[in-house]
């Protein structure tokens, strides 16, 4: 693996940048692995990386039906925060945020983490009560959180319309200064490069078509590139988790929905932070290229179609223009849809399954990107030890029958 540094940059500049090597191999699948990970998105690649790095498990294949990082990892609004209400969520998302803070050094790959702060707006009395409660809960959990009154919100993000007559009056906001955004593709590429360098095979254009189970234990997978035996199989297929789990006879409490996002034409820097609003369900930030990156809620119906309805975009744009009148003549450049796997309690499942040697990491809904490093970190631990880490011990499948749900709907600063 070429180590990226100012020295390697200068050396390659002298040879007109024609000497850079490929960042990962494209190996043929071997007949058997210790661990097969289904899905080379951010979470799957992070799992492979931490399996190799922390647990010495390197006989690992990551199978991807398309290209790595080509699903939701490359299609999200890149927001990172850890201001969740409940202790279980706060712990896992804060662990992830701490990993983010050292990730560029860890991976020798610039993930362009920008801790520009995340504002969660409050528009009415209930929002204020919920926001202040969440700030207090965050602080008790050691997570940075502040309550801002409207004048402070205006000072932090001057282009927000805080006039009392606004359609969505801003009556306050919570602020997590350590929140922000990162470069989504770079996270997948950095983890892929790090995992590959430690011997992990990343196999693209290889769709899993079946999971073989014998006497209650997984023994391998069937793919479009032949059968692969495996001692352990980990499902990290995001929107397609139900489809893959069904191959092993598992039913999940998950439904797949389209989630759309869109970007504007590029502007000079106007948006100093990330602004989210739960009540009107819209969120916006500005990328380093100058485009506004805007997201909203999911379409209501189940879908694997990677597209949603225009009326959802219309609603979110209406809200954006009320909150930021300065954007009223801005043109939108492109929109896209991804498929997110939503759990009934808006919390993920990172756990063992009733099938021996089969693990699942999913149900992250609309908020999985921020969890990428933390999710891979705890999932690698779960696979290597065949037991969860304390940080993901609560995120089981069994919580749906025991009743120990982690209800982050509406509690998690924005519902997802």
């Amino acid at each position, binding site marked *: 693996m070429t180590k990226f540094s100012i020295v390697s940059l200068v050396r390659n500049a002298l040879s007109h940048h024609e000497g850079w090597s490929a960042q990962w191999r494209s190996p043929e699948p071997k007949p058997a692995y210790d661990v097969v990970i289904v899905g080379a998105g951010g979470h799957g690649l992070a799992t492979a990386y931490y399996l190799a790095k922390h647990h010495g498990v390197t006989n690992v294949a990551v199978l991807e039906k398309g290209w790595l990082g080509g699903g939701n990892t490359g299609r999200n609004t890149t927001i990172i925060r850890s201001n969740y209400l409940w202790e279980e969520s706060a712990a896992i998302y804060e662990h992830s945020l701490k990993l983010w803070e050292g990730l560029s050094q860890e991976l020798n790959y610039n993930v362009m983490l920008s801790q520009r702060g995340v504002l969660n707006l409050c528009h009415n009395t209930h929002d204020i009560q919920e926001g202040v409660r969440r700030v207090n809960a965050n602080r008790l959990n050691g997570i940075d959180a502040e309550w801002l009154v409207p004048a402070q919100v205006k000072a932090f993000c001057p282009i927000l319309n805080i006039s009392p007559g606004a359609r969505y009056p801003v009556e306050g906001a919570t602020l997590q200064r350590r929140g922000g955004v990162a470069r989504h593709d770079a996270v997948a590429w950095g983890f892929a490069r790090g995992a590959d360098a430690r011997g992990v095979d990343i196999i693209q254009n290889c769709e899993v078509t079946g999971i073989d189970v014998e006497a209650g234990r997984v023994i391998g997978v069937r793919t479009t590139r032949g059968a692969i035996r495996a001692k352990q199989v980990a499902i990290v297929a995001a929107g*397609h988790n*139900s*489809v893959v789990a069904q191959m092993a006879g598992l*039913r*999940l*409490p*998950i*439904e*797949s929905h389209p989630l759309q996002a869109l970007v504007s034409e590029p502007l000079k820097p106007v948006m100093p932070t990330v602004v989210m609003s739960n009540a009107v369900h819209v969120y916006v930030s500005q990328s380093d290229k100058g485009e506004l990156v805007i997201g909203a809620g999911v379409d*209501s*119906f*189940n*879908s*694997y*179609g990677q597209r949603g*309805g*225009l*009326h959802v975009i219309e609603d979110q744009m209406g809200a954006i223009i009320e909150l930021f009148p300065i954007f009223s003549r801005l043109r939108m450049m492109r929109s896209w849809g991804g498929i997110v796997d939503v759990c*009934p309690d808006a919390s993920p499942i990172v756990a063992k399954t009733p099938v021996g040697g089969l693990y699942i990491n999913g149900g992250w809904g609309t908020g999985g990107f921020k969890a990428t490093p933390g999710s891979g970190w705890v999932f690698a631990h779960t696979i290597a030890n065949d037991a969860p880490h304390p940080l993901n011990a609560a995120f089981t499948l069994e919580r*749906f*029958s*025991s*009743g120990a749900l982690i209800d982050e709907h509406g509690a998690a600063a924005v519902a997802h």
Partner: protein
Amino acid sequence: MLKIPCPWCGLRPETEFRNGGEAHIARPANPFAVTDAEWADYLFMRTNPKGWHRERWNHAQGCRRWFNAVRHTVSHEIAATYPMDAAQPPLPEHDGEG
């Protein structure tokens, strides 16, 4: 946006409707007689198919009646809608991708 054929009002835009999730999930006749796992299956577990899906819709801003639909979750094609107490129409033979 989907155009949904309400069995009573005809073809109407999606914004008039509310999606009610998977159809034909029967509440256990005696909730006290089922295990926690069976109750969880009723409450939370879903088929979530990639393909034809039987689902409930409510014409919230029209006739306000509930009905079921057979819709494809990739192409979004709606093959049939039918009253909630009607017999289930068979799933279409084509794969819905076209």
